[in-house]
């Protein structure tokens, strides 16, 4: 059976695409799938540092596409997680070095080699975006609950529909306290505005910074709420679409929750 290529995109930068790609990829691999995470941010590569594999980069995706090396030579095998491979971006080229047609050809090879391929899309809607979605079968749009991220997500969703890809939505960095206070868009608000299917909700979690600092994948950290959420998202993408989506909540005692019920602020 051929694998599937999923692009992780957002339009806006800094909403957590790279973290999501690394975490969902690691979770799928821990579940026994053969996974490649591909850094499509040519010129500004970061998936390698987020995964703690920056010291092992030899070849990159541009080398593969231009025929300077084989796909297997460029794919860095993670030593902590079996079946997880990173295909890094080139740091010295720019996005125009690749074309969507070349990516479609690479996609054919990736389909045969892996069960899941996650493309970490660069911010923006220019060539880098076009390259990242060219070979994609599915798309996950990441969005944080703020006005600028939702607006950009809407734009990207439109562009994906135009290419016959029906994207799913991941709402990242939800602060349950702020949502309860009415100072942050809830995930329902975001879904209302964007009207697409939800694939998961990830709450704000300090462990994400810790994970990036150390290069240890989030899903291997203990007590990471965001890590657990990414694991569930991976399961939904991997044949369990009906796994219930948990809403981030604040932890509170009886009186506090009673106070909130009658409308007092926490």
């Amino acid at each position: 059976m051929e694998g599937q290529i999923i692009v992780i995109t957002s339009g806006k930068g800094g909403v957590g695409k790279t973290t999501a790609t690394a975490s969902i990829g690691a979770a799928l691999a821990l579940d026994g799938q053969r996974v490649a995470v591909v850094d499509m941010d040519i010129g500004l590569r970061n998936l390698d540092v987020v995964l703690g594999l920056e010291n092992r980069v030899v070849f990159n995706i541009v080398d593969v596409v231009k025929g300077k090396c084989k796909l297997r030579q460029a794919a860095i095998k993670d030593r902590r997680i079996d079946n997880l491979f990173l295909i890094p971006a080139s740091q010295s080229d720019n996005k125009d070095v690749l074309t969507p047609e070349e990516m479609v050809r690479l996609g054919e090879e990736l389909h045969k080699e892996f069960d899941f391929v996650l493309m970490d899309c660069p911010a923006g809607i220019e060539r880098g975006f076009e390259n990242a979605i060219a070979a994609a079968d599915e798309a996950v749009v990441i969005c944080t609950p703020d006005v600028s991220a939702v607006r950009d997500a809407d734009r990207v969703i439109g562009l994906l529909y135009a290419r016959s890809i029906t994207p799913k939505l991941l709402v990242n960095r939800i602060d349950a306290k702020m949502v309860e206070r009415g100072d942050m868009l809830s995930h329902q608000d975001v879904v209302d505005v964007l009207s697409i299917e939800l694939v998961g909700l990830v709450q704000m979690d300090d462990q994400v910074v810790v994970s990036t600092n150390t290069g240890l994948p989030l899903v291997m950290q203990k007590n990471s709420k965001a890590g657990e959420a990414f694991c569930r998202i991976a399961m939904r993408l991997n044949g369990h679409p009906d796994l219930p989506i948990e809403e981030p909540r604040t932890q509170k005692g009886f009186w506090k929750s009673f106070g909130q019920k009658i409308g007092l602020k926490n």
Partner: protein
Amino acid sequence: MLNGLLRKYFGKSTSKNVAKKRLKLALIYDKLEVSDDILGKLRQDIVNVISRYFVIDKGSLTLDIQRSDDLSALVLSTRIVKAKHEEHPA
């Protein structure tokens, strides 16, 4: 605490409601590629045309774009004070 109670029962002016309202409008303008500026001019032109035939309460005139799933509608609402009865409107 009181603030929270008041906000919950007497108004919906939490910042997220403001955000949601702004977003919905921004997305409509994005899709139509109509700026506030153009809507302002359109509004002025419409007022001028209607004023040839009717005396209207200009302050109460609203011009909105409403969006449903597959169509957008330009909705104009105004109070007519009275009709003008001139043969050749200026």
